């Protein structure tokens, strides 16, 4: 479909009035076309107002519905905590090398993991992220994937401390967690498990670290990566 043909569909797209095949074509076109995205945003605004203006609004949703929703929510993930050291050496034997980068490296149980603080579970955390972003001295590290253009995460840092923001990574199962790794003096060390949703997770890096990586690991974390790295990015020199 040409740009002009897609453009003609934007109104009906905003109203969910497209068949699946055409909807898919619109969705494939949008990422590459700022003009269509801008037009669609305006259509969506109008659609939202239509939805918002439906009359006879009940004051609230029916009784009991919240309880059903609440009980269907998944359990909380582990907060950002250092992984537990495995009790047997057998677990180490399961370790699979990372990939080209780390295959030859000696994997080290993450001594640094204990330095990672617990996830601050407050709304006030947003302020920490924004104040860090507002500080002109902050540094940004983009973690990306060579294979999947849409897998990525950003790390913002100031004096070695910061946060993971805007992660976009593949879905993981309930028995998995994201885990953060760093390359330090040629060794892969764990910086802690991130849970299922790494957005806003605080991190701390050391001057010896040169590369950050995230992988999906069994819940609870592992001493060394057991799956391929999802995203990675070089740390700036002289943190």
């Amino acid at each position, binding site marked *: 479909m040409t740009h002009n043909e897609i453009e003609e569909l934007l109104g009906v797209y905003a109203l969910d009035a497209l068949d699946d095949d055409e909807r898919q074509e619109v969705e494939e076109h949008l990422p590459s076309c700022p003009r269509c995205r801008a037009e669609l945003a305006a259509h969506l605004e109008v659609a939202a*107002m239509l939805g918002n203006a*439906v009359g*006879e609004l009940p004051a609230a949703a029916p009784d009991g519905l919240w309880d059903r*929703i609440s009980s269907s929510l998944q359990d909380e993930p582990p907060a950002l905590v250092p992984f537990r050291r495995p009790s047997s050496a057998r677990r180490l034997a399961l370790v699979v090398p990372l990939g080209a980068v780390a295959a030859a490296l000696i994997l080290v149980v993450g001594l640094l993991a204990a330095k990672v603080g617990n996830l601050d579970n407050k709304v006030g955390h947003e302020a920490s992220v924004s104040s860090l972003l507002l500080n002109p001295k902050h540094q940004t590290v983009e973690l990306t994937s060579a294979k999947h253009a849409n897998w990525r995460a950003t790390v913002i840092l100031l004096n070695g401390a910061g946060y993971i923001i805007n992660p976009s990574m593949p879905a993981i199962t309930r028995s998995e967690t994201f885990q953060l790794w760093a390359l330090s003096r040629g060794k892969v060390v764990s910086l802690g498990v991130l849970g299922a*949703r790494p957005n806003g997770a605080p991190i701390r890096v050391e001057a010896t670290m040169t590369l950050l990586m995230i992988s999906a690991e069994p819940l609870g974390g592992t001493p060394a990566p057991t799956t391929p790295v999802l995203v990675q990015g070089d740390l700036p020199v002289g943190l």
Partner: protein
Amino acid sequence: MRPELSAASDASLALAIARYREDALAEAYRRHAGAVFGLARRLLREKAAAEEVVQEVFVRLWNAPERFDPERGSLRSYLLAQAHGRAVDQMRAESSRRRREEREARETAHGGYDLEREVGDIIVAGQVRDVLGALPDTERKPIELAYFRGHTYREVATILGEPEGTVKSRIRSGLKRMHGQLAVAGLGAKGQQP
């Protein structure tokens, strides 16, 4: 609930939800579930089906809060858009489509098909209603049939006896016209807070 949540912005709420704070989700539910339910009920007509949509929408907000982008509009708009999409999906699912068609056939048999009456009972509040009502019929009807009745534009074309190309153009031009009018009336993306 911690006191700060009741005054938290949408963005702060979404962030707290991303941190697995269930009280933040409860606050989002308190603010917006009524509107979400109202829209779903309007579209699906069945209470149980509408409740299901509400549940899906809020569970999805819990599981993927990052999909809500505060830059692009209010949380309520986002939730309503989600609810609309889900409700329309349900309406188009084979079994419910059959039920709907049977119901519409019954209604037609009783009262005769009357588009004005079909969509006329859609009560749209205040200025949005005025702006929608001020559109030329050729634009208003396809928008109402698509948005409030969940029809695809091809179905709308069949209902109105118009070419498909005409219908999609008119929906697009009608939305543009509404956007202009609503902007004139001072209603923009940020004007949707309760």
